[in-house]
């Protein structure tokens, strides 16, 4: 939701006149004003991630969209352009302060040119600024918000991707699944993990699951309880869970919350866990030939 910074109360007959005059001025002086803007951008060292040609191309589009928004008083086209622009420049490493910075610089450059043009008529300058300022502020807002929203969308997407990567359920033998957990588990991820595992047990008809938490440094009480619930839920589906790789800290947490360790099958490391799982499933691993 964009904050509304609509135009102030202008005498009705005047407002469109003034805006037209303003827009005409900005169009006529497009080349010089754009140059001035580009000069200021490089002076303040913004958009260092982009080349001069790229900045010129984008600056031209931004300038034209800016003037169009001023002219039409509608911002949908600008919003769409802002999102599109953001999609392109975010992967290039352009930051929020840079985007807001260049839009504000453009606003300043255009305002200065208005001061210069109407310096002889203070009254008129004021009325022109009354028409210009709210619209210019709205434009700055639209572009900044568009950029930030796009950034947030990208971050959410990346988080989702990380979550998916981090909890694969892997079948290593018939009826044997391994769930290696790495990183930080928050309650939401713990829940997702459990759901994924239970579905995996059903799909693969697993009898034994080895959950390896070597890669998990710490676990709070909520997550530890989740782990216990995962073990219990797996049993309801007929699968035995072996937990491996408990760090001393996590072992402490489990003891502290009073987990009934009789209910939880734990083994020191993943190798040991797999060996025990194989035993439970009736596998025996023997060498094919005599080792030399």
């Amino acid at each position, binding site marked *: 939701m964009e904050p509304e910074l609509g135009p102030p109360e202008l005498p009705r007959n005047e407002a469109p006149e003034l805006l037209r005059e303003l827009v005409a001025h900005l169009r006529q002086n497009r080349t010089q004003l754009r140059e001035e803007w580009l000069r200021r951008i490089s002076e303040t060292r913004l958009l260092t991630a982009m080349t001069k040609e790229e900045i010129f191309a984008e600056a031209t589009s931004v300038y034209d969209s800016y003037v169009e928004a001023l002219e039409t008083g509608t911002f949908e086209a600008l919003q769409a352009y802002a999102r599109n622009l953001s999609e392109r420049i975010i992967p290039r490493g352009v930051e929020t302060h840079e985007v807001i910075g260049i839009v504000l610089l453009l606003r300043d450059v255009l305002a200065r040119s208005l001061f210069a043009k109407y310096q002889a008529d203070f009254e008129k300058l004021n009325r022109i600024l009354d028409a210009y300022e709210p619209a210019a502020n709205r434009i700055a807002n639209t572009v900044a918000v568009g950029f930030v929203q796009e950034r947030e969308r990208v971050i959410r997407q990346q988080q989702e991707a990380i979550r998916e990567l981090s909890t694969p359920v892997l079948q290593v033998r018939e009826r044997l699944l391994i769930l290696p957990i790495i990183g930080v588990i928050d309650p939401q991820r713990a829940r997702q993990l459990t759901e994924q595992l239970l579905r995996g047990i*059903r799909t693969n008809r697993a009898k034994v699951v080895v959950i390896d938490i070597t890669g998990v440094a710490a676990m709070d009480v909520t997550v530890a309880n989740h782990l216990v619930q995962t073990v*219990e*839920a797996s*049993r*309801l589906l*007929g699968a035995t869970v072996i937990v491996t790789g408990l760090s001393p800290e996590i072992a402490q947490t489990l003891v502290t919350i009073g987990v009934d360790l009789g209910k939880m099958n734990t083994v020191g490391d993943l190798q040991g866990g797999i060996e025990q799982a194989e035993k439970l499933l009736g596998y025996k691993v023997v060498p094919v030939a005599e080792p030399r």
Partner: protein
Amino acid sequence: MEVPILKQGEFLIATIQAALSDADLEHLRLALVQRVVRFRARAVIVDVTAMDVMDSFASRTLREIALMIRLRGAETVIVGIQPEVAFAMVQLGLTLEGVGTALDLEEGLVYLNQKFKALN
């Protein structure tokens, strides 16, 4: 609603078809114990594949069925608990402790055969 109970050799198989009222569950408990006695069954398989919720009453009743049947020297296996149901159950602390469980009917039969082989 009457839950169908089939006899398969020395086993009884009860297939729950939909949501059961508390009264239906009571009735099932009675029916199962009576049949274990009548047919001298060695085990009972209760198939709950079609149950998409399991509340505390249902869970408690299943446990009681298992305990009563064990008093007659027979085993009970609950099969077909759905992943979502299992998750919801453990969150409520309903773990069916002490009752055998298996993924489905096929696994339930494997479980029982292994158990009886071990006993013999």
